[in-house]
């Protein structure tokens, strides 16, 4: 056998070796890889396995039979059934309520990220150390080499390890609320409504704007319809009669629409009674609305207004 033939065989053998190793690796990967959930129950199981039972030690919600775990399981099932939130978002919802300690998969941020970064870092350091040791065994002269290549290699190992760790953390770490697009429509609506109420006492224009924003995404939101109309009417009282008339018509129509959407929404009924008397001068209708309002157990703030107004209305009717 000539030397050239032998030299040609070495790369060919290496190529075959690479192909065999790659095929085996892909076969193993394909066999052990977990597929996505097939049914809703699979999804519920997968999510509940990622959440720790808040009242028991070392058990996931999937395993635990504790009351709190059962409640969480029911909530997960409900959210999976609704089909609105992703698995990550459902886990984030639970963690937002019970705290980060219920996460069985550590977060990819803060101190938790160390859990993800350390294993790849140690692996890289170990591999680097092995490589250095092999080099020393094969070429003892390397041991006497200058320290600079050693430091470069060390830095490289650390960079590779940390980089790998960050990648693993990003890929596998648990995402919490605000770290992902977890804000549901109902959450943002609730937040806008709460902000609007807060602003209504001090900055009516901003409050109306916030209600408008709610109505853009949820045109049938009775709270936004009612309180926007109420604030518009209150603001219009400082302007001329023509504008007040317009505001009155629009407000009465808005309260009517809110009651059409939700007949039991007592706030709309109360405001309708107030506006009809104060701005429309119709005591008869006002009494009817206010009486029905009080029968519907309005919130304390509205109740106080209505009770004092009803005395005035009764007096006007004689």
């Amino acid at each position: 056998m000539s030397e050239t033939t032998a030299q040609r065989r070495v790369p060919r053998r290496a190529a075959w070796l690479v192909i065999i190793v790659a095929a085996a690796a892909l076969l193993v990967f394909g066999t052990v890889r977990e597929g996505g959930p097939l049914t809703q129950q699979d999804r519920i199981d997968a999510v509940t396995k990622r959440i720790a039972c808040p009242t028991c030690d070392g058990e996931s919600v999937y395993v635990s039979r504790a009351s709190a775990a059962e409640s969480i399981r029911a909530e997960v099932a409900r959210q999976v059934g609704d089909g609105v939130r992703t698995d990550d978002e459902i886990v984030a919802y639970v963690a937002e309520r019970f705290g980060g300690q219920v996460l069985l998969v550590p977060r990819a941020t803060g101190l938790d990220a160390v859990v993800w970064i350390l294993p790849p870092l140690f692996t890289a350091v170990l591999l680097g150390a092995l490589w250095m040791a092999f080099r020393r065994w094969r070429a003892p002269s390397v041991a006497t080499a200058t320290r600079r290549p050693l430091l470069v290699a060390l830095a490289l190992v650390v960079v590779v390890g940390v980089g790998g760790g960050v990648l693993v953390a990003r890929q596998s770490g648990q995402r919490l609320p605000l770290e992902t697009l977890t804000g549901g429509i109902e959450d943002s609506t609730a937040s806008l409504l709460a902000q609007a109420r807060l602003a209504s006492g001090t900055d009516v224009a901003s409050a109306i704007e916030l209600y408008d924003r709610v109505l853009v995404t949820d045109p049938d939101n009775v709270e936004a319809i009612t309180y926007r109309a109420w604030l518009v009417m209150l603001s219009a009282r400082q302007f001329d009669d023509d504008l007040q008339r317009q505001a009155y018509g629009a407000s009465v129509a808005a309260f009517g629409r809110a009651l059409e959407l939700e007949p039991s929404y007592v706030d709309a009924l109360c405001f309708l009674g107030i506006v009809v008397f104060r701005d429309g001068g119709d005591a008869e209708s006002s009494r009817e609305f206010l009486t029905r309002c009080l029968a519907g157990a309005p919130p304390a703030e509205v109740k106080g207004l209505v009770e004092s107004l009803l005395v005035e209305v009764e007096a006007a009717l004689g």
Partner: protein
Amino acid sequence: MKAARLGAIVAALVLAALVAVLIVSDGDVGVGARSPLLGQPAPAVSTTTIDDQPFALARRKGSWVVLNFFNSTCVPCIAEHPSLVEFARGESSRVDGVELYTVVNDDADDAVRDFFTSNGGDWPKLRDADGAIAVAFGVAKVPETWIIDPNGFVRLRIIGQLASGVLESQMTRLRETSES
């Protein structure tokens, strides 16, 4: 020598930082427990009372709302009940009185009804059959008490048994804070 001095400086800096953290940290949290929901809009709660009346928390804006998570077999719940009755009596005389609701946790309607018949308390009792309200508030064990302000923001969470007078003093504090 230089290294030793540097080490001493670093140690002193770390110690100073720890002392600073201890000084500025708010260690006294009072009776209130931590929750990510504090200062946030209250979760949407929609259910029925054990008398089949509809209830929606979002529709109670304009009132202070107290939610007490309860189970008729839980010892601390039974122990704190007289203070809740006392609190409800005091609030009923106020114009801006608190609306108190019991959230029934993993318990039967009849058991709850029997308990309240024997021990008093005529406020509404909300069903939470599948624990949705408990999960929404992050309640793992009862009793727990939550206070929601008239704007719909969660203001206080109290874990465990309520001591006598605690709700009254917390409400006074919260009302003062919201008025100022």
